[in-house]
């Protein structure tokens, strides 16, 4: 149902195309909203599908946008990768107005994508999809040794973690010193 098109900016999104709606038109015309991710691709999504997201549902419930206003004001999710947002939108559309099944087998298998999806879904507050994702994350390490778990979930050892922390502190200290010097230079 959702289709996408490359937009130019969040303020002036490109006209998104829409797939034909179901033949049985509802009595009250359904309202649509627009979202885009890091890649600025705008997705047209029905209010019904967006109900899955407590965050977006809360935002749109009192907006009362006309179609034109909604189109002109897409919700920008700059920190969600375009392909991840596409997955989320597809899931919301597939499960619009339907009870969610106990399992969802269409989740990404690659760990990076899955963790990206977890973060996005948690941010958008899509409870059912978050549950599926968490189940999938748990399944990734079933029967694995601690070393394998570290590798699969990209967990640094304590030594690596401490070294990274020291490095970050050192970098932050250098940056702070640089800023102080620059400010002193400006003052002169």
């Amino acid at each position, binding site marked *: 149902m959702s289709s996408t098109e490359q937009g130019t900016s969040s303020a002036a999104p490109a006209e998104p195309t829409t797939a034909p709606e179901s033949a049985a038109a509802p009595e009250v015309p359904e309202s649509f909203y627009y979202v885009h991710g890091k890649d600025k691709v705008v997705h047209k999504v029905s209010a019904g599908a967006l109900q899955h997201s407590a965050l977006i549902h809360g935002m749109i419930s009192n907006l009362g946008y006309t179609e034109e206003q909604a189109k002109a004001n897409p919700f920008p999710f*700059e920190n969600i990768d375009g392909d991840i947002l596409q997955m989320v939108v597809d899931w919301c559309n597939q499960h619009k107005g339907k009870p969610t099944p106990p399992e969802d087998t269409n989740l990404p298998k690659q760990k990076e994508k899955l963790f*990206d999806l*977890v973060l996005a879904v948690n941010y958008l507050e899509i409870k059912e999809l978050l549950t599926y994702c968490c189940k999938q994350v748990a399944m990734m390490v079933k*029967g694995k040794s*601690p070393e394998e778990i570290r590798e699969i*979930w*990209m967990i640094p050892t304590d030594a690596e973690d401490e070294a990274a922390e020291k490095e970050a502190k050192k970098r932050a200290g250098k940056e702070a010193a640089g800023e102080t010097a620059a400010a002193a230079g400006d003052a002169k």
Partner: protein
Amino acid sequence: MNSNFSAKMTKLEPTWQGIPVEVKEIVLKYLEYKWRFRLRVCSKSDKYLIDNSRVFLKQVELYKNPLVLLINSDLEIHKNVIAHLLGIFKSKNSKVKSLILDSKQLAKLSLESENPLKIQEAYFKTFGMSQQNFIRLFQKIDGKSIKSISFRRNLSEDLIDQLVKTDAWKNALRIFCYGRQDIPMDHVLGRNHFRAQFINLEPIGIWKLIKSIITRDNLESGFGFRINYLNEISQNDIEAGFKENPGIVRNEQWQFSTEHSCSYIFPVNTKNRIFVLRMRRSGFNGYDIEGYVCTENYTDDEFRKYGSWIPKNHEIVNHRIRRGNFHIVNTFLNL
């Protein structure tokens, strides 16, 4: 539209370390208990996470001789057993569906556990501790979570007096007392299931129990009781109670009907249900009186099904007792 409203996510990395703790806790919910310990040794932060996150377990069993903790029937712990058991309840939101306890070490659980024990089904095989500690332990059981309580050993009169004052006793829908003792019937009324072994059962007590069932709403098939008793109660003794309530009871011709074996049918408040009461000489010792809510056109098979039903935790204990030891699998992990 404000393009900064997704700033909340900016510092989060798409890795296990990067996801919020509340999401990690959801993942832990779906991670089998034994795999939690493998995660625990991955990093300091994971150790902290595991040690402080709530635990949902189907079954926890603690046995003595040797002291062993069995978790979900597939994890056996021999070292730091009590510390581990206490650790399960360290988070106040941890929940255990079925807890089977058989150890003197339980005193520690009553003394050292800070949080209410959120247990649905508690089975006390032995007590092995002072009455005071046992009561203290019992008081720690969360009254909102508990559904079923079972005792395998006798309860003294004094202990019963104190137990019946606890929330756990008051709220339990199922009470099973397998030691032989007399329990004041007023303390077991209104339960879905009650089983006990009495020395002296008074007919007035039976009538109280029957009345509490047939006057209840929303009964389900199988609700009822079974009491084994040693004193003799005749059909006339039983019927004396019914006579105060004429017209509600029907004496049913039953294949085993004799002076001490009879069957009665009572109407109940729930549609398409009846209450069937039967009394007969026990196959083991003394006599049995049992009654269950049945469907209107019940058969002997239906009645027998309710009579022979035993809860899962009783099955487990019986099975372990039959086998003579409580080892279930080779040690998976010694903590």
